[in-house]
C-alpha cells in the first residue's frame, strides 16, 4: 500500500498563519461549509478558499464538493505527521531515560 507523502515544511507553513489555525479550531468542532467558515471569521469566502487550499495541500484538511456546497473537515493524517515529528523527540528522551535505568541497575550488580 502506497503511503501518502507528508511535507513537513508545508505543514509548518500552513500552521504558521493565525487565520488558518482559527479555521482548524472551527473544523475540530465539526465539519463546515466554506461559507460557514467565512462569516464567523469575518473574512470573504475567497479568502477562506485560499487558506483551505493551503491546508488541504499540507494534508491537514479534506474538502469535498457535493452539489454547490463545498464541505471541509479535519484530515487526521497531517496532525499525525506533525505530532510524530515533535513526539519523536520525546521518544528519544524516553528511550534514553529507560537506558539510564538499565545503567543504574548494571552498576548495582557490579557492587
Amino acid at each position: 500500500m502506497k503511503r501518502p507523502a507528508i511535507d513537513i515544511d508545508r505543514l509548518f507553513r500552513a500552521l504558521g498563519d493565525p487565520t488558518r489555525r482559527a479555521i482548524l479550531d472551527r473544523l475540530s468542532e465539526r465539519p463546515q461549509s466554506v461559507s460557514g467558515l467565512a462569516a464567523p471569521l469575518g473574512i470573504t469566502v475567497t479568502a477562506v478558499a485560499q487558506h483551505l487550499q493551503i491546508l488541504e495541500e499540507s494534508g491537514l484538511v479534506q474538502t469535498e464538493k457535493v452539489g454547490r456546497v463545498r464541505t471541509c473537515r479535519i484530515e487526521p493524517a497531517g496532525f499525525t505527521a506533525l505530532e510524530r515529528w515533535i513526539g519523536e523527540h520525546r521518544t528519544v528522551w524516553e528511550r534514553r531515560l529507560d537506558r539510564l535505568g538499565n545503567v543504574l541497575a548494571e552498576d548495582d550488580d557490579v557492587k
Partner: protein
Amino acid sequence: MMEERSVIHSSFVVERSYPQPPERVFAAFAQPARKRRWYAEGDHEIQEFEMEFRVGGGERLRYRFKEGHPIAGSEISNESTYQDIAAESRILMTSKMSLNGKPIVVMLATFEFLPAETGTELILTHQGAYLEWPDGPRMIETGWQDLLDRMAHELAN
C-alpha cells in the same frame, strides 16, 4: 503583509522512578563515562561525545544514522551548555540540535532529582523551539502508516 512563522513551540514532561538514591542518579549525569552509556549510546554511530560538567561548561554529542535508517549517513549534532547545576538535585541545560549542520531544534531541558520513598523521582521538563525541518518527510515516513493504524485502532475503542 502577514509574515508566516516557521517555528513551533512544544513542551513535554517525562518522569521516571529509579530505585537508586538521588546521588547515584545524579552521578549518571555528572560523570562523562556514565552519561555516555545511556545518553550517547543508541541505534546510531557515535562520532563524538564530550562534556564539561560545570555551570557554563559545554557538551557535544554527534552521531550518524546507520545503514538501513531512512537518512542513513546523516549526522545529528547536539551542542549544549550547562546553565544551572544544584548538586544531586537539579540540572538545567540549553541545547541546539542540528541535522547535517542545519539547526532543527533549540531547547531548554530541566532535570530534577527528587528523593522518593523508594529511591529517586526524575523529572525532565523539555521546552523546544522546532525550526523548519530540512530533508523533508523522510524521517517521518517510517512508521507513519503504523502510527495511523494505531490511532485508528484507538479511536475505534
